[in-house]
């Protein structure tokens, strides 16, 4: 049994218009899994289902032995699954420090110590801890959003297109940070448009097309597969 597993998930935003049409996903402890695929394939929807923001009409989501579909985002967050949305993933008028505090809202015990550990780890955030989060650059915002998720000391981190809209250098730095976070033992499910980079740091990859699993396997073999390169990587 893996750490997180999704089986036959069907979900959508309105009745009769399913975006996910029966998706499976497995995440083992310590793994990075990347989900790639064309626009509208249901990649972000899958993350929202796992995070509890969208109830699947069919299928199960399990964290270890426990079924978590139907639980509220707060309950799922308290179980150790932290979701970082693609956009609007910070509180813009609040300071960096306050953003971190809100990141750990469900578990206020020891928040000060956790914030100081996170600030020691991300020098940029420490330097700007009193600044309003809206003053950060795109890359810095993504780092803050991930740092907020780390405040609940998650087992699983769900990242929705973390490199969207970033410059290549900022994206490279971000992927390095994601790798570092994983090396600390946090398992990661990442949805990405930047497929080559996403597969480069992942252990395994899933390719979704039209709400269904299209291909899956070790990230390296997916990245090297000529069909996958032609269709999804534009190579």
């Amino acid at each position: 049994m893996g750490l997180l597993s999704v089986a036959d998930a069907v979900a959508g935003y309105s009745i009769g218009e399913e975006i996910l049409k029966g998706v499976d996903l497995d995440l083992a402890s310590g793994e990075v899994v990347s989900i790639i695929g064309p626009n509208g394939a249901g990649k972000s929807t899958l993350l929202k289902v796992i995070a509890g923001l969208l109830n699947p009409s069919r299928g199960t989501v399990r964290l270890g032995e426990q079924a978590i579909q139907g639980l509220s985002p707060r309950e799922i967050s308290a179980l150790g699954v932290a979701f970082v949305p693609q956009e609007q993933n910070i509180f813009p008028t609040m300071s960096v420090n306050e953003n971190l505090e809100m990141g750990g809202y469900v578990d206020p015990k020891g928040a000060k110590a956790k914030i100081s550990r996170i600030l020691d780890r991300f020098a940029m955030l420490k330097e700007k801890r009193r600044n309003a989060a809206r003053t950060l650059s795109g890359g810095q915002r993504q780092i803050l959003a991930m740092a907020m998720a780390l405040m609940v000391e998650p087992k699983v981190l769900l990242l929705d297109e973390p490199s969207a809209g970033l410059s290549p250098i900022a994206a490279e730095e971000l992927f390095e940070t994601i790798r570092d976070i994983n090396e600390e033992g946090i398992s990661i499910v990442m949805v990405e448009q930047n497929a080559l980079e996403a597969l480069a740091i992942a252990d395994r990859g899933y390719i979704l097309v039209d709400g269904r699993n299209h291909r899956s396997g070790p990230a390296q073999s997916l990245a090297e597969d000529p069909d996958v390169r032609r269709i999804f990587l534009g190579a």
Partner: protein
Amino acid sequence: MFFELAQLVVNGLVAGTILAVPAIGFTAIYGVLRFPNFAVASHATIGAFAGYVANVNFGIPAWGAVAFAFLIAGLSGVLNDEFLLKPLRPTGPLTTAIASVALVIVLENVIRFFFGNDLRGYDLPIFRDWRIAEIRIGPQQVENIIIAIIAMAILFLFLTFTRMGKAMRAVADNPMLASIKGINADMVGRLVSFVGMGLAGLGGMLIGLDTSIDPLTGFRAILPIFAAAVVGGLGSIPGAVVGALTVGVGEELSIVVLGPEYRSVFGFLAILFVLLFRPRGLLGERAY
């Protein structure tokens, strides 16, 4: 002429400081619940009458009676929101805003039922106005300003240093992310209704302390309150303070040009100009 203008500016600053209290309440409720709750008008009246009962019937001095004004208006705000407005929120902000206008009429008539239509005055000691270089200011006005500033300072400390206050700002800032982070939006909604309507009630009493009260006290104040919130930027608390001072001083200075009977025109004009040239308000970027 100089002293006349200076007197008007001082009067405007006094009125603006008092107006800032209910304007903060209005804008805070808008920031969190995302609809203009015009029932701040009737809650200003409820606060004014609650303070009146505490002051005249129970003999509590004005500076203590304002606590009753805050508490009773705040509780009424929570109950009215929970049972009347909250069920309508899923239908959209316009429906809820219209319902809040209906609530103004209902609550105003409930007050009329119990207290009648007469003008009432608080039981206040009479003092001679102070004169500072030809400019007059009453000790009660100074006390009102001090109460308003203390209320704003407490609110600032609450929003800056408490977990609940920060959660309130987080919901105002990004409701979706706040829910992902496990902040209970219902609890924050009740809290902002209590604090917002409490401030409206406190503001209503401060307005009444300067003049007199009747069931239309809050209704007469709604235009300047709304104008202050829009001028400052709906949802922005420092904006509401800046907006209230602008409207307070603007209304007083407009007397020179338009005469006292048209002073409320300033509120309309301020809304019109801000919506035309700076729709997000003077400080719309800063929610807090």
